[in-house]
């Protein structure tokens, strides 16, 4: 059974404000374990450190403290060990308008990981690209392979980003708010696609979101973060049905029910504004 475990992750950023230098603790002691076939959700408002956790796991940032263990062994940070890690752990970014290179066609974005990780060579590459596109429901694949990012909608771009993350044949997937930049009406479609791919590949998924409702629906365990700290952590149903921490309750009250996915922004804003009085600042910034 393969596992990806993070232990007590801490990240400090140096920030320069005017002449003074200070450090900002973006993540303060986060621990959880990802297992094949299971989903852990990290939930929290904007600025609570979720993306920083994701970027540390994707080895885009180095943790200030703490450890990341793949199958029980500390991960390698350079050279072959890093390449081997990237083969196992992939990431989908939040903003599909920024995560695809505007200069390159879709085929380039999918060909590279296939070649880098030796998944396909020579004549196998093009069929492999087409197969990936079909798996994320972009058909006919020939049409999409030739497109540039700006010729596609947000949902289509995010499907490309998901296909790219699948290309190396990873066992773990970090999805950083994969639908928050998408139109409300298509969010569920992309999430269901992710869930289907997870089942097919038996992936361990880290699902980052600010939306407790989808976190409950799609994940087994929930980690609630607030300003870098983990305020609550446990099996999804327990966290949702019996929240212990005030901040979780606030988030919960602000979260839309799955049946109310199509609500207007204004309603949510108003609701969140009311919740803010409860003592926590809740920014509906990612809506």
């Amino acid at each position, binding site marked *: 059974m393969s596992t990806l475990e993070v232990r007590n992750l801490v990240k400090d950023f140096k920030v320069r404000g005017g002449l003074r230098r200070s450090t900002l603790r973006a993540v303060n002691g986060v621990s959880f374990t990802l297992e094949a076939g299971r989903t852990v959700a990290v939930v929290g408002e904007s600025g609570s450190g979720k993306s920083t956790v994701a970027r540390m796991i994707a080895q885009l940032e180095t943790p200030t403290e703490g450890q990341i263990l793949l199958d029980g062994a500390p991960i390698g940070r350079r050279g072959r060990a890093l390449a081997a890690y990237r083969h196992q752990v992939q990431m989908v970014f939040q903003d599909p308008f*920024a995560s695809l290179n505007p200069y390159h066609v879709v085929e380039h974005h999918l060909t590279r990981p296939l070649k*880098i990780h030796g998944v396909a060579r020579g004549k196998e590459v093009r069929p492999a690209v087409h197969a990936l596109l079909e798996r994320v429901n972009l058909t006919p694949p020939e049409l999409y392979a030739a497109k540039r990012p700006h010729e596609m909608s947000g949902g289509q771009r995010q499907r490309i980003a998901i296909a790219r993350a699948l290309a190396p044949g990873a066992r773990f997937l970090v999805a950083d708010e994969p639908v928050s930049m998408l*139109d409300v009406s298509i969010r569920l479609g992309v999430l269901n696609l992710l869930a289907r791919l997870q089942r097919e590949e038996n992936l361990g998924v880290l699902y980052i979101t600010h939306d407790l409702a989808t976190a409950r629906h799609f994940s087994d365990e929930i980690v609630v973060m607030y300003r870098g700290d983990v305020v609550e952590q446990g099996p999804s149903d327990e966290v949702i049905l019996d929240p212990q921490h005030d901040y979780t309750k606030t988030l919960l009250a602000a979260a839309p029910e799955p049946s109310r996915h199509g609500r207007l922004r204004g309603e949510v804003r108003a609701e969140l504004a009311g919740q803010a009085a409860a003592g926590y600042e809740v920014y509906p910034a990612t809506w």
Partner: protein
Amino acid sequence: MTDRPRLTLRLAGHGKLVVGLAIVAAIALFAIVGPMLTQNPRSSDNPALLPPQPGHWLGTTSLGYDVLAQLAEGARGSLLVGVVAGSLAIVLSLVFGVVAGYTRGWADEGLSLITNVMLVIPGLPLMIVVASYLQVRSLWVVALILGATAWPGSAIVLRFQARSLRNRDYVSAARVAGERTPRILLVEILPNLLPLLTAQFLFAVVLAILGEAGLSYLGLGPNGSITWGTMLNEAQGGSALTRGAWWWFIPPGLLIAVLGCALSLVNFSIDEVINPRLRQAPAAARSVRKARKAGLDITAYDGGDGPAAVPAVGVSAPLGDEPREKVQA
């Protein structure tokens, strides 16, 4: 690009670019073909100071050289200096700008330091000192001097640009995919700098041609070669102005000015054509204009916060952040 028809279609909407390219092409053609059709530019067998006439369409100099022949040979020299110096400047500014911008640590610090030092050393005096120090200056040496002093400005622009591109999600995504640094620089970042690089290259070419003319005018140009600059220098030495031999100094001066203007015209309009996100912009703008004429109220293309009625049209952002709109799936 393989898609020729689309290229011509794209050029159709760009008057400035077409005019600029046409002039540059005409001058380049003159440089290539001209010397074959004119007499030997170094033959002084002609009568001195002939005004323009059949046989000597641009007259002759005080030493009996044919001005048209010298102009054609000089076009070769000036363009060669411009292109060589421009290329060298771009290569140097890529190394000192893009590499410094993308990497962190000692490579960044070292390259930035050299750039900053080069930037504060004034270019023209340095060129004059180096050029006067060298007794024998071939065309190539002059081009190298010009190129080696022309890069720090663009290197700094490229450094900031690369620094901003380094933090783009698509660069992070390439790293997560396992791409190595050299390939990220060449394949993921460089193409997005292409509009900027083209502009800088053309600017460096203009600057080098003007710089060569300046050095030659001061008598510090290439020895033994003919350029528009050495022609001006000789015209000055031969008192062309006081003798009223306008045909001697006006053609090279005019060609320098015209080439400079044409390259600048290309420069101003190149971004729209190269930038993939702006490619559809002219067509979309036209359709918006048409719709306006038809009395429809369309606010999208004005770059306000209005609804994105025209999909995938970047609100012109040549260098800065990517345009972002929420697009319905």
